[in-house]
């Protein structure tokens, strides 16, 4: 990964969905790769998430969805980003996502969708992303 200051990533669950095993495991595995991860835990609203992300000055936000709320909640996240004038903060999404929704999420402004991927694919993407852009 990029040298200099650690890349900071916020990982969160939104809404009432409690499937947090994937998010927690990914947070641990990213930390093991040298990323600084802030795991925001369960039950966040889009407002709570974006406010925390700005406060913590993170370089990327990762959201884990497992209960079908990605199409309703993601637009609210993007709206909130816009409201906070933080449109350039990249958002990635992972979890249980129907393949045909991937394009819709990308159109909403999501940088990348991982559908039940391995952590190493996420790490590969992050390493690549931050080696070109820096944190």
């Amino acid at each position, binding site marked *: 990964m990029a040298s200099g200051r650690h890349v900071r990533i916020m990982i969160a669950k939104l*809404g009432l969905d409690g499937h947090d095993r994937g998010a927690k495991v990914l947070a641990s595995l990213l930390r093991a790769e040298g990323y600084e991860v802030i795991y925001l835990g369960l039950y966040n609203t889009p407002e709570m998430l974006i406010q925390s992300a700005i406060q913590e000055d993170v370089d990327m936000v990762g959201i884990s969805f497992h209960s*079908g709320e990605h199409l*309703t909640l993601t637009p609210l996240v993007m709206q909130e980003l816009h409201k906070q004038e933080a449109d350039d903060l990249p958002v990635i999404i992972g979890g249980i996502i129907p393949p045909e929704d991937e394009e819709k999420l990308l159109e909403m402004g999501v940088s990348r969708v991982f559908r*039940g991927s*391995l952590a190493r694919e996420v790490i590969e993407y992050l390493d690549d992303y931050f080696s070109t852009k820096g944190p």
Partner: protein
Amino acid sequence: MGEKKEDAGMADAYHEKPADLETWSGLPLKEFYSPDDISGFDYKMKIGNPGDYPYTRGIHRNMFRGRYWTRREVSGYGTPEDTNERLKYLVAEGASGLNVIPDNPSIMGIDSDHPRASGEVGVQGVPMCTLQDMELLMRDMPLEKISMSLIASSTQTPVALSQYIALAQSKGFKPGDLAGTTQNDPVHCRYAGFRISSPIDLALKTGVDVIEYCTRHMPRWYPINVNMYDLREQGLTAPQELAFGFSMAILYIQGVLERGLDIDEFAPRFAFYCSAHIDFFEEIAKLRAARRIWAKIMKERFGAKDPRSWKFKFGVHTAGCSLVPHQARNNIIRVAYQALAAVLAGVQSLHCCSYDEPIALPTEESVRLAIRTQQILAYETGVARVADPLGGSYYIESLTEQIEHEAVRIMEAIDGKGGMKDALESGWIDAQMDEASLRYQREVENEDRIVVGLNRFRIEEDPRAGDAHRVNPEAERLQVSRLKLLKESRDENAVKESLREIKLRAEAGEHENLIPAMIEAARNYATLAEVLGTVRVAMGEPYDPFEIVSHPFF
């Protein structure tokens, strides 16, 4: 992604051998097993015929010759009317039991009109706010004839049960006429993503109330289904699944004993919900070991004298976490092996995952396939003809023993930490789960564990090829406006009075059973949040787990 291995050529593939010589849970295995491995086993004491203590070989002498396992499929989505349609479809397709799951707001004990319920109503289950929802959900269903499983598991359970009873009473039936199951394992809900709404004392109180009430008034109802499955889904090993699940069961048992019931009055109606994971023999051995452990817990630890108390009754949910979205049709095969393991282990009730669950809510087609998987097992393969067909296998009996030994060791460790309540509150159980899930994922990442289609044999898939099931987008709006209308039209004073009664009883002490007062409140169309919130406040918790909404009356 694994290309290197696949390109290594035919010679390597020809000589390839299993790299992983332990069970999924890491138990060591030998090359083969022989009479030496079970030479010390006293057949009668340790294994026994099917139907005989300690029930290693099954709880019925004739097993499926007496009756097939119940084939249940979980449903719940959209409005109560939408789910009612799905239930009727399942009955028409030959499902022999019904399983309804509430949506996330209902599981958490908040109503569809709660600000945090927005975007969640009818998404992952069906809303169950009031008696009206129950009336719509069960429309045209003969309550006295069906076996109904309410997968109300959380602190919501006593309210859902009260709604069901109030509905039955309005049709002239008594609680004793009803057959079915409530999952009612609110303590475990902290590990199913609902910690905020499952404080341990409230969870134990509601769980024990339901068991006590059903024991006294509903002889055809199974009041509790201890959910080992959800624990296993956190990444646990097979022995941990049993040890943590039994230790939770013991918490409820102790609570019910304190209400003055005798162990043999309620233990015969205790049931369990287990996982069938992907390691075929280990899962069979696990379920056989579970029967032996439970029989001993009942007889030796709690002094149960009724053989019905000794019998471990369980449903199986095939392991959702073993499925992957990549080449999703491969999941059909995973599920079939898991279902076969459950049947060979003598399961009472089986839920097969639909192959598309790692992608979206199941479609009608994929749910049908899950039912067909069970029907092929039951009617074509012949595996149901003889009880415990693997009993006596040197390997299976040894592995059963190994798992029993390891599970009992973990249970003793929990007792050594002051019991399950302390182990939960201290975070010890959480740490065990985090460690297990991280270990598993590292092994998958390193390809020490092969998951076909995920870390090996991956192909490019067409991202547009889905036909995911979609929830009726109007469901939330319909549900919320109906709830609003109901609140405007019900007898407000009657609601208030019945909530006051719940409050008084809850404040009278932990041993005061709240279900009769909850049935009255349900009849008056008090909402889930109002009823449960009243109990929460009486127990020193906030009315609303999110601390946004306050009590509408007091």
